[in-house]
């Protein structure tokens, strides 16, 4: 059984999430959706700790950063000496939609045993205007095109949430939040 923790953050602030896998072969995953549309600092620490053997863990982050927002995400995977055979991965993906947005990403790994599989990835880029132009060339309005692309960015992670109830609730909240995103103002 895999425990799932889903977070959708829209307000500036600071906090920490820790998922600690204490039982052998325990599985856990953090889904972190961040819509930094307001001015201010969004500072989050996400930690995944493997304390027992053959545990499996994932942290998946999708973040949208608008003008004057600043995000600082520190993601940490720690595999203790007792956690042989563990498998862990951290994935941070962010998109800018404002020229003055700031994006600080610190994915960390601390591996103290063997054999393990562990890794992380982080990417950051601007909104893909070429993709938007393509959609407009297909008769889709700029606003619709923007919504499609933003939903695509978040939904490829959303669809992997196993719990139907969590998935459905998160989808609705994301959809409502993305409607507030206005690319032209940025």
């Amino acid at each position: 059984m895999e425990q799932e923790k889903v977070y959708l953050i829209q307000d500036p602030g600071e906090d920490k999430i820790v998922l600690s896998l204490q039982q052998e072969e325990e599985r856990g995953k953090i889904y972190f959706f961040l819509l930094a549309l307001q001015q201010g600092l969004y500072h989050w620490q996400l930690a995944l700790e493997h304390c027992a053997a053959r545990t499996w863990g994932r942290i998946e982050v999708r973040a949208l950063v608008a003008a004057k927002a600043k995000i600082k995400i520190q993601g940490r995977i720690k595999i203790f000496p007792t956690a042989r055979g563990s498998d862990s991965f951290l994935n941070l993906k962010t998109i800018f939609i404002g020229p003055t947005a700031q994006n600080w990403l610190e994915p960390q790994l601390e591996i103290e045993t063997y054999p393990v599989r562990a890794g992380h990835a982080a990417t950051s880029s601007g909104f893909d205007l070429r993709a938007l132009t393509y959609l407009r060339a297909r008769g889709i309005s700029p606003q619709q095109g923007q919504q499609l692309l933003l939903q695509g960015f978040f939904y490829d992670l959303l669809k992997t949430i196993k719990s139907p109830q969590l998935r459905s609730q998160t989808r609705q909240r994301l959809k409502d939040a993305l409607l507030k995103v206005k690319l032209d103002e940025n």
Partner: protein
Amino acid sequence: MEKRKRKKRTSGNLATALARADQFAYNYQSPPGLDTQLVDEISGAKNEPPWMRQLRQKALKIFQKQKMPPWAPSLQDLNFQNLRYYLRPLPQASLSWDEVPPALKRTFEKIGLPRAEQEILAGVKAQFDSEVIYGSLRQELAQQGVIFLSMEEGLQQYPELVQQYFARLVPPADNKMAALNTAVWSGGSFIYVPPGVKVKRPLQVYFRINSESAGQFERTLIIVDREAELHYIEGCSAPLFSRASLHAAVVEIFVHKGAKMQYTTIQNWYKNVFNLVTKRARVEEGAVMRWLDGNLGSRLTMKYPCCLLAGAGARGETLSLSWAGEGQHQDLGAKMIHLAPQTRSRIISKSVSKEGGRCSYRGLIQINPGAHQARAKVVCDALLLDSFSRSDTYPVNRINESDSIFEHEATVSQVGAEQIHYLQSRGLTAEEAESLLVSGFLEPIIKEIPLEYAVELNRLIELEMEGSVG
């Protein structure tokens, strides 16, 4: 669980030969400890201009007040008051290889320096403890205006040029070890390559710490003028002693418009050396800077070569290889600061940890506002060869320009049992199989090193791998 004991070839190999100190009478050895009097003494012995003496004293004050950063590994086994900060082997550097005393020659002959000088290098410098004892430069390069001197010689012969650039990239307040180096620096290289001159063969410097509880603080300043090209290689060794030694160097490089520079390091200090180094390059418009960093030795290395990508279209690259065995901690990485549009950076780091060794990657990517269309990519791969070792990754990425692309990936893994089994089915022993797989893992970086040094580096890695599969 008892740790596996390693069996190494101990007779007749280079590593063993370099592990013995060379015995001879030094021209001068400072007493242990550091104070303003010693700093004045060093400056006076080198006949330095007043601005350098004042800079040294200012740096000493900064060193005494400044602390190491909170994330730094422990230096508790390094006693700064027990170190000797200035050791002069000879009254002055030799003019020819024949004039170098036999006792000093032996070490450099062991590593093949005279042969390399003849066959593959454009010039060479050999530093023994605190001073450069020998140097040469091919005549045709000197005629083209290439300058390759010790730092002291550069200060004497080109004082305005040195003053223009010295400590501009790494001021003494940059960090504690930079302050220490600025206070007691001795030796190192001063290189200037005129506009348009392409130095086809590498220049090489070899550093030897020969004394117990010694410090080596070379200062290197390289200026590659417009459209020029240079490849600089440094190597190092130290004998086996029980007490700690310190190597705290500073390297500053200015790569002007359209120029290309590669700085290759093969670091193989013995395991009593604390290697705490600051290296920084400023890269102008359309220029290219590459750090190629191989780290096999030392007890603790802290080194994060940095590129300030200051001009449009500037490119920076760091290829880093690290090996941490028993009792070793390699805390390495790179920094790329994008200050201008269309700048590009790439960092590739490969590390191997075994027998309780620890490799940590510590990096910084910073893309400043205005660095439009900047691109940065970081790839960190780590191999853990047993359950006693450790691997860490601590990247910091500050992306402050929305019109930029940044990518980072890191993996930690081990040599696969299936891969070893396959190679054993082809007649290799388990040890040979693991060694082959580790070499393949490191190959993308080793292939960028000049062939002669790559062969030696591969050999050193094979030596480290012996007895590792039990």
